[in-house]
């Protein structure tokens, strides 16, 4: 891995070029094209079996693509075994070496280098790594003496001590409890900013991906569906799958009644028509779906506004807002998030209450239904 001094900092740190991976007859990843930017926090998001872990393992060198090229820092690495790639991974269950202490675990990667760094250099680097993950003084501990959260930090230290070009994280938070996970997410994000290492995270937890990533790659059935910032994906999902996976949404299926570039009109159940921004070109009569985020749906007392008459079925208090499940005669059931301020003004809704559901113009997105 020769690194040229006049490196183009805008060149991607890693790339998939038309990468396909098959395991026997099973296609795990198909036609992946992706450039990972230097220093970004990128997440692969999707349900299990979507190919996100396969993508990560091809970066690590545990799997070789069946077709296509994998590049690291401008150089092809497909065919290069994992131990010769300047990439390190934090494993899902940490995979710490149980027969070594904390310091030896962290030093493991440095000790594999040839020429081998001196004992003093290694000790310094290990101490620095322990400090980075806030485990000063834990070098002499045995692995089994540590809590789950501490083991996670050791796994992180063991990877970053090598100053890899890519830090790969395979569902690193899956084994932590909710509170610890939240803390660790914030810490990881801070760490990524301060170290300047490119992080690539694999997760099925959309909240995790949304809160930490600069960009998210949404995968489905081995293919990349959409790549974008958390905001892009939330506000402008490419299709129903993305809208459903990133955040919550209400979907109303129907047929296109009329469409131009800026607005599409969707005929839904019971002769209702929903107008919204189309996310692709539609022709008349085509099946499509309207997507409206619950927080854009306002609930009003009858007579206080214009909208759809609904009946409240349930209300779940979620802290900053209450999630109401309501039912409209034609459109069926959907969700509305009512913020605390609105509740303070008009009072809480009880199951069985009549209400008016309304959303602002432009709140609905018209998406392909596939």
């Amino acid at each position, binding site marked *: 891995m020769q690194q040229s001094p006049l490196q183009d900092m805008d060149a991607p740190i890693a790339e998939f070029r038309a990468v396909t991976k098959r395991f026997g007859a099973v296609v795990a990843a198909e036609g992946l094209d992706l450039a990972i930017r230097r220093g970004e926090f990128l997440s692969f998001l999707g349900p299990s079996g979507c190919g996100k872990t396969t993508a990560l393992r091809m970066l690590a060198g545990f799997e070789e693509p069946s077709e296509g090229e994998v590049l690291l820092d401008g150089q092809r690495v497909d065919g290069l075994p*994992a131990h010769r790639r300047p990439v390190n991974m934090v494993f899902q269950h940490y995979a710490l070496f149980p027969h070594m202490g904390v310091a030896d675990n962290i030093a493991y990667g440095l000790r594999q280098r040839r020429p081998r760094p001196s004992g003093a250099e290694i000790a310094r680097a290990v101490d620095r790594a322990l400090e980075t993950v806030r485990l000063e003084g834990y070098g002499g501990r045995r692995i089994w003496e540590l809590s789950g959260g501490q083991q996670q930090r050791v796994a992180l230290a063991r990877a970053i001590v090598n100053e890899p070009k890519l830090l790969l994280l395979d569902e690193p938070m899956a084994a932590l409890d909710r509170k610890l996970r939240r803390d660790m997410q914030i810490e990881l994000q801070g760490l990524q900013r301060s170290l300047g290492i490119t992080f690539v995270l694999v997760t099925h937890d959309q909240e995790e991906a949304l809160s930490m990533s600069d960009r998210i790659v949404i995968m489905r059935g081995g293919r990349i569906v959409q790549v974008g910032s958390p905001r892009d994906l939330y506000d402008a999902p490419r299709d129903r799958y993305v809208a459903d996976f990133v955040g919550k949404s209400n979907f109303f299926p129907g047929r296109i009644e009329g469409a131009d570039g800026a607005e599409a009109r969707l005929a839904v159940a019971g002769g209702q028509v929903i107008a919204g921004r189309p996310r692709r070109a539609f022709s008349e009569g085509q099946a499509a779906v309207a997507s409206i985020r619950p927080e854009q749906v306002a609930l009003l007392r009858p007579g206080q506004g214009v909208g759809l008459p609904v009946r409240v079925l349930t209300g779940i208090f979620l802290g900053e807002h209450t999630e109401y499940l309501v039912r409209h005669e034609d459109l069926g059931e959907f969700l509305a998030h009512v913020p605390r301020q609105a509740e303070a003004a008009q009072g809480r809704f009880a199951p069985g209450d009549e209400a008016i559901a309304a959303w602002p113009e432009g709140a609905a997105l018209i998406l392909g239904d596939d």
Partner: protein
Amino acid sequence: MARRRIGATLLLAPAGLWLLAMLVLPLVVVLVFSFGERGPAGGYAPAFTLANFLNLGSRGAAFRNTLVLAPLGTLACLLIAYPLAYVLAMRVGERWRTVLLVLVIVPFWTSILIRTYAWIFLLGGQGIPKLLGWLGLGQPMLINTPFSVLVGIVYGYLPLMVFPIYVSLERLDKRLLEAADDLGAPPWRSFWQITLPLSLPGVATGCLLVFILLMGEFLIPAMLGGGKVFFVGNALVDLFLQSRNWAFGSAVAMALVVVMLVTVTVYMRLMRRWGGGRDDVALM
């Protein structure tokens, strides 16, 4: 608390009584006999003398053979069993693994006596030496040598070594090997640094099992050693059943117990040190 203690006592009672009757009492008898004399018509006559212990040197060859061939046999078993167990646990697919594991056990389906008997023919004048003679490689004497005893030992004890090692390798978390690979260790280095240390409990168990059983072995040297290569076990058979000198036989038996205790203690100390203070390496 008291009730729990009574329960534990009851649970331990059968094994405790069994050990008392079958191990402790006989051992005491052997100890008492070892200070006695040979009766006029053989057997035991009460006395208190150290003569039997002072006479142990006359059976020095048996102790020497046992103390050389038992560790050597254990080592030979280990060197052959480890690669086999490694392939079974790490390299073979699910289906073949079962087939091969069964093949390792198959020899146990017939008596060790019959199997060892087969080796007498294989190693005897009409067996492998004759084949080598046809090939113009001379006709080496194979039967009734330390080599033939070693062959018999490896043949008979290999499965006892293979299984504990196989189990420890099979249980080894394969993600650790990926982690080593990821951190820059080529395969052979991750073997030395990860696989081997983590399979030491299996190695220690296998070695201890084979070694202890070998220290008391008498069948294989009797059949494949032809009276020339004999173990302490053969000396005991001879003393108790042939020359009927129970007192001297008891002294030899006590000496074997002491030698065994010393070597096993030293062995466990060493394993514990290598294992970095891990009890599982020494005790499993």
